[in-house]
């Protein structure tokens, strides 16, 4: 059975802090790993990673994948209150590339 585990489950920081969110996985027929941000509604796409060691970056957010150790991290630098959300990690696998999600990390950024 495919499995995705995120840590920590929740995190409270102050504006300006840097955070690192973790995602480890065990899946058969790995295709890609994705990060999503979810506020009160639908998850919104952040990154898709398919190759080890190549960092993807978007503003203050960055992510990297290690396919040997089967994990990924999502970094957020200089956090802002608008970064408060649930961050979801998902792995795409199989011929239909269905997603298996972790339980998410609830990030709260205090002013």
């Amino acid at each position, binding site marked *: 059975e495919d499995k995705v585990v995120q840590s920590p489950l929740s995190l409270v920081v102050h504006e300006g802090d840097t955070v690192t969110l973790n995602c480890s996985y065990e899946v058969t027929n790995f295709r890609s790993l994705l990060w999503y941000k979810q506020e009160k*509604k*639908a*998850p919104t*796409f952040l*990154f898709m990673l398919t190759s080890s060691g190549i960092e993807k970056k978007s503003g203050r957010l960055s992510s990297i994948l290690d396919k040997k150790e089967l994990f990924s991290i999502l970094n957020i630098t200089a956090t802002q209150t608008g970064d408060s959300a649930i961050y979801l990690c998902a792995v795409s696998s199989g011929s*239909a*590339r269905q*997603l*298996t*999600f972790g339980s998410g990390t609830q990030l709260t950024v205090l002013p």
Partner: protein
Amino acid sequence: DAGITQSPRHKVTETGTPVTLRCHQTENHRYMYWYRQDPGHGLRLIHYSYGVKDTDKGEVSDGYSVSRSKTEDFLLTLESATSSQTSVYFCAIRRDGDYGYTFGSGTRLTVV
């Protein structure tokens, strides 16, 4: 998100009644998925489709059926709703390239 809509947005229904949720896309993507989201469980796959009339089960398919008679529409039916099916339901499409998957706005279903 542009290109994928779900209906209804909210529904309250009684135990034992059938319920159908609709997912509509305007971009002709082949793969469509239904997920449910519950506290403590993240999103879990119910069913998916890889083309017209081509569907398969996901992790939590018991009590659900799907149909895809046109590329743009993917329907999820709860044959006889139970309180354990109270959840938020998301539809998703898979985009080509590095654009990942796009989710609809969700349907909040309450079974009383």
